[in-house]
């Protein structure tokens, strides 16, 4: 048997041995798990995983390699990857490199050979915690000390947001959208492009005045990492822009909109991450299977005093999945209608955004 060369140690002293792949480095992150069965490339390149190490519950990772077209960001910021079995011999007509090569290139550590079932159960029972990925020779005491001393950063959004604005144009352009980048996934931009939107992606700390100067038809608030309460700049921005433009928010954007209207957010025990979360659309009583990735949720009771109406709910744990204020032409969802990875049942939300913009332009 191959000898173990890496290990992970959790804050509560749990220790797992495995084999390193990707970059050979030490890292401390928050441990979370994802239940998607396909789409590890989109997950690895999702900016929302900044400062997080992801346990893939699906046991075989790497099977189809990495393709040139399926990145969700230009520069991945995920903290690391924990898998049961890593496959270094991909099979797919589009693959151009292996997952390990991609991780190595971007200085991201990975570990395989881990009992991901046991680990996931532990996360579900005891909640997400700090984790260190380190060399097998590092002593447990040293690893635990390092974990104890490490303070999780709160600057995730400023780290992943673009520093300068950038453009994504499309043929047959009909609308101008300004997308506030808190860690935007590229498939959101593609989904808007596909519907005739010229998208200007701006840094998270862009002012309301700067956005107004761009004369948008609609404003989009992106997904992103970390605690929504840390992103005060964008909360202030929404307070200024609400009612002036049609606004659509996804994930972190949804939490920020809720905060701007006076609701509260809280951290879930182990979050929702995966491609099979059933969500009930309260408006038409239909169920959508959704793609999700979030640690925080909006508190239902705190919404009662606000102008926001609940539009979607998670069937598994009854958490809030979508809110809307028709009067202000603002709506948002906690899950990911752009999927990537995951089911595409909810792509109608982009069409909804477009129809709100159209109606607004007519008036």
């Amino acid at each position, binding site marked *: 048997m191959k000898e173990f060369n890496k290990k992970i140690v959790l804050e509560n002293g749990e220790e797992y041995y495995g084999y390193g792949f990707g970059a050979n480095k030490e890292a401390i992150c928050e441990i979370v798990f994802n239940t998607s069965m396909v789409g590890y490339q989109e997950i690895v390149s999702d900016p929302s995983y900044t400062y997080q190490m992801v346990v893939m519950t699906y046991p075989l990772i790497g099977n189809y390699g990495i393709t040139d077209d399926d990145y969700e960001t230009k520069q991945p910021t995920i903290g690391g990857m924990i898998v049961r079995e890593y496959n270094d011999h991909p*099979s797919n*007509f589009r693959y151009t490199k292996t997952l390990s090569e991609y991780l190595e290139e971007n200085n991201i550590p990975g570990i395989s050979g881990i009992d991901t079932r046991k680990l996931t159960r532990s996360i579900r029972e005891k909640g997400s915690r700090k984790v260190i990925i380190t060399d097998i020779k590092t002593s447990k005491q040293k690893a635990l000390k390092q974990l104890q001393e490490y303070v999780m950063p709160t600057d995730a959004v400023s780290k992943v947001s673009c520093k300068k604005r950038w453009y994504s144009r499309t043929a047959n352009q009909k609308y101008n959208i300004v997308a506030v980048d808190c860690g935007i996934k590229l498939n959101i931009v593609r989904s808007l492009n596909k519907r005739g939107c010229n998208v200007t992606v701006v840094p998270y700390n862009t002012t309301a005045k700067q956005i107004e100067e761009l004369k948008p038809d609609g404003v989009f608030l992106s997904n992103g990492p970390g605690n929504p309460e840390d992103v005060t700049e964008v909360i202030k921005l929404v307070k200024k822009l609400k009612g002036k433009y049609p606004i659509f928010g996804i994930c972190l954007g949804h939490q920020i909109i809720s905060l701007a209207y006076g609701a509260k957010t809280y951290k879930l025990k182990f979050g929702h991450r995966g491609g099979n979360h059933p969500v009930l659309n309260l408006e038409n009583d239909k169920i959508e299977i959704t793609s999700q990735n979030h640690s925080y949720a909006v508190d239902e009771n705190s919404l009662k005093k606000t102008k926001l109406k609940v539009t979607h709910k998670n069937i598994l744990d009854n958490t809030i999945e979508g809110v809307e204020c028709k009067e202000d032409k603002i709506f948002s969802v906690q899950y990911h209608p752009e999927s990537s990875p*995951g089911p595409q049942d909810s792509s109608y939300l982009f069409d909804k955004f477009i129809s709100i913009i159209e109606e607004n332009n007519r008036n």
Partner: protein
Amino acid sequence: MPKRKDIKTVLVIGSGPIVIGQAAEFDYAGTQACLALKEEGYRVILVNSNPATIMTDTSIADKVYMEPLTIEYVAKIIRYERPDAILPGIGGQTGLNIAMQLYKKGVLQECQVELLGTSSESIEKAEDREKFKTLCESLGEPVLESIIATSIEEGVEAANKIGYPVVLRPAFTLGGTGGGFADNEEELKELIKHSLSLSPVGQVLVEKSIKGYKEIEYEVIRDKNDTAITVCNMENLDPVGIHTGDSIVVAPSQTLTNKEYQLLRDSALKIIRALKIEGGCNVQFALDPHSFKYYLIEVNPRVSRSSALASKASRIPNSKSLC
């Protein structure tokens, strides 16, 4: 979904002896269904010709008929027992065929028996290759170029038009029995005789061959409220050209990226919604290993052998959730 109060007795058609097309896994599905129905308080009458199954144990159904699975015998049972409804979609192709024949012969109407789950129109739309092709074309879903032949001459003409190699698929047969590949006219003539004789309606579909494509399946479930989910997808280790019954199938797919996975998932959901299937359904695709090009091969408007495998792999009791 709320419980139906107007139904008291349900007839379940079992899968009969174990051969391809009526595989042992149907027993698993059928037994689950009987138990689920009983749990809900319905009286369950079972007909199955196979004494060597758990299903025909006296504890599974309220009344068990161990009679041949033919329309004559089932009609007799219906006339005697007068069930309120019949559940055809879990006994494999056999159960479905008998239910369709009972419907066509007017037995169901005569005894006022309701066909539970997918309607007979939907079943026909999915099973009749010509109707299915028309439906797919109207949805913009790709199907293989194919021509129906009812004689050897028609078969040869069709193959010349499509171009060799071609595949022959007799209509309404179990597990695709009597089908096969033909690389030239000689092979075709030999094969088509056999195929025509095996099809109960004397129809054979001559289709372009896509040997070597990846064979991907989706298990889909839809209810009256139009909620549709995929239970899982599956990838056959062997490509198109080797019968699924002879191949190893893995759930979930192993060589599909998210894009390919969702492309086919969306297509499967579109089909089940268009067919208005209420219950389980199995959709089979052929996917080009070198591009995003795919074809719909087949839709089984019922629980299939793969459903039973999917049920075990995903630990979701498919047929239980159908009842």
